[in-house]
């Protein structure tokens, strides 16, 4: 879960990391009640990258300029994200822009620290940043990072500040369940101090059970989602809408993607990625059907499940029940296999349902049905 800049900076500040003293507003009018020293930076708050290059950060020299910028930014989407707030910060006189981040990296078997003495919007175009493979957070060693930065950052005072900051970021990542903590730019000011001019923090959604703020943020993030996505999340289904017409109900990310690929190869287009493996119960499947039955672009539903822990005789019985009570007339094609799959045919036979033995045949039928319905 990517935080917005001001949410990220709140976490940084709590960990003793310097951030500019800003505040968020949700309307241009809100600025009128604030005593602000100009110039300021007016920064749109979207949980998406590339904002700086796309004009999401504006320098304003007066209240009028700032209010205009706030109004404009609140109306502008970035990367498909509508901002819900704008951050107002003192405009920093930056002597040098640095780059510092801590992320989870398999090659590091844990956290990696990345640093570049030249940060900012063009970071990806420049020389790749210096890399310190930390591993678990407790393996962070200031002296190791110092060795690595010896030739990278020649200003010793900056180097020591960066090392101290890197330790804080690694600790922050580990103790607050962040998978990415990126400060770009990390601003070196005239007095030599370092301030986080921006913050990109990704928190681990799986840690909600022990981090109340992650649980709350997940709950909050769910609300503005369109209703089907929001319902899928609540029902523990993983739903991503795509722009095709073959609705796919599957189990396991791998089988879902593999079936999507086959739909494409058969000349069709998947309407969604819908993985029910985290909730393979009557409730979960019922919800999956409701979501796809209610979505107009879905012309046909393909159920493609290869169960391991999921017992396919139970799935078959569930499908039988759902089919019996279902109002939608969208055709459904089944391919069930896996644990106890040999009982599926027998269960389906009672209900006049058919289960495909081969995945390719099921896909072909689904794509053909979708085309037929499209043609109508």
């Amino acid at each position, binding site marked *: 879960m990517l935080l917005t800049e001001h949410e990220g900076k709140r976490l940084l500040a709590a960990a003793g990391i310097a951030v500019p003293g800003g505040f968020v507003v949700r309307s241009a009018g809100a600025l009128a009640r604030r005593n602000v020293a100009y110039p300021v930076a007016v920064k749109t708050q979207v949980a998406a990258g590339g904002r700086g290059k796309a004009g999401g950060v504006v320098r304003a020299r007066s209240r009028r300029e700032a209010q205009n910028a706030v109004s404009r930014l609140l109306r502008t989407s970035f990367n498909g994200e509508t901002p819900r707030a704008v951050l107002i910060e003192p405009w920093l006189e930056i002597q040098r822009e640095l780059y510092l981040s801590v992320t*989870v990296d398999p090659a590091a*078997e*844990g956290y990696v620290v990345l640093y570049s003495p030249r940060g900012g919007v063009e970071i990806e175009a420049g020389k790749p940043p210096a890399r310190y493979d930390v591993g*678990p957070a407790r393996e962070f060693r200031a002296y190791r990072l110092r060795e690595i930065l010896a030739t990278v950052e020649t200003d010793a005072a900056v180097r020591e500040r960066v090392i101290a900051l890197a330790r804080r970021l690694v600790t922050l990542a580990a103790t607050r369940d962040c998978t990415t903590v990126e400060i770009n730019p990390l601003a070196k000011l005239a007095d030599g101090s370092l301030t986080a001019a921006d913050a990109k923090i990704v928190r681990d959604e*799986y840690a909600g059970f022990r981090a109340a703020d992650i649980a709350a943020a997940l709950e909050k993030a769910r609300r503005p989602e369109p209703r089907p996505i929001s319902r899928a999340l609540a029902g523990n289904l993983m739903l991503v809408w795509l722009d095709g017409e073959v609705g796919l109900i599957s189990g396991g990310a791998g089988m879902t993607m*593999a079936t999507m*690929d086959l739909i494409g190869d058969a000349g069709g287009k998947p309407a969604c990625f819908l993985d029910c493996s985290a909730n393979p119960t009557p409730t979960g499947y019922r919800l999956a059907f409701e979501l796809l039955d209610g979505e107009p672009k879905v012309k046909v539903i393909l159920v493609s499940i290869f169960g391991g822990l999921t017992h396919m005789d139970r799935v078959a019985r569930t499908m039988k029940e759902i089919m019996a009570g279902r109002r939608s007339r969208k055709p459904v094609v089944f391919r069930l296999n896996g*644990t106890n799959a040999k009982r599926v045919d027998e269960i389906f036979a009672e209900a006049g349902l058919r289960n495909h033995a081969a995945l390719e045949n099921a896909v072909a039928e689904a794509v053909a049905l979708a085309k037929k319905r499209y043609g109508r």
Partner: protein
Amino acid sequence: MSVLIDQTSRVIIQGLTGNVGRFSARDLIAYGTRVAGGTSTSKADTEVEGLPVFPSVRAARESTGADVSLVYVPAATALDHVIEAFEAGVRLVVYPGDGLPVQDAIEMRAAAKANGGVLIGPNTPGIISPGKAKAGFMPSFCYTQGPLGVISRSGSLSYEACFRLTGAGLGQTTVIGIGGDAIKGLTASEALALLHADPDTHAIVYLGEIGGQDEYEVAAYAARSGAKPLAALIIGRQAPPGKKMGHAGALIGSHADTHAAKMKALNKAGVYATGTVTGLVTAVNAALAGVKLARARTA
């Protein structure tokens, strides 16, 4: 032969008394796995499915000599149970659970390393050496003994893939589910090293997807001189960039994460790579033909 698990392995189940634990115990025993017992934090000193239930892994090990543990506990307490297993001297721990915070995955891997053990997981169906033993919940009928070592990031895909291989008479030495998360107990390159060293594994099948760097580890292995022939199935051509496809690791963030880039790297390294399950058996047969070719040459 096979890797990590075989007919001599003695397996315990942590969380034996839960529904999944009981089902899995029956399933493992039915497959011929030597299941030695299990642990339960709530119902100690009883018997489940004819197996002894111990209050701790140490007690289970002392009494049964088990060297493999299959851990069925929720994510919130998973790290604690996995550490317990390694510190009790278990050699191989399989943690199939998903939804594990990455911080805990990092610590699990570190615990395995610190204790000289091997962790498989999280987010995996486990491991099976067909005809010998299994520690996981993959459907047994999909597997048969043979010359292929299989490594998979996805559980469900590995069932489908092995179902096809078995159907085509292409059996397996060991099938390892390395899991779909970013931080893995056993990585693709570590799994490759194990299968590389196994004399009965003649060719390796890798089942991968978009996102992450694992496929580049596979390509790097394949490019080495003396590498075993490799076939690969890489899925996710229809996945849009920037969206997480179920697996924590299955997300296209940069160009290197894309299907095309991975296929290119694998092909360049001499891997028989396909982008569709339909092409899997053909790719694997091509890889095995490579084995015969190589043998003919050395003969």
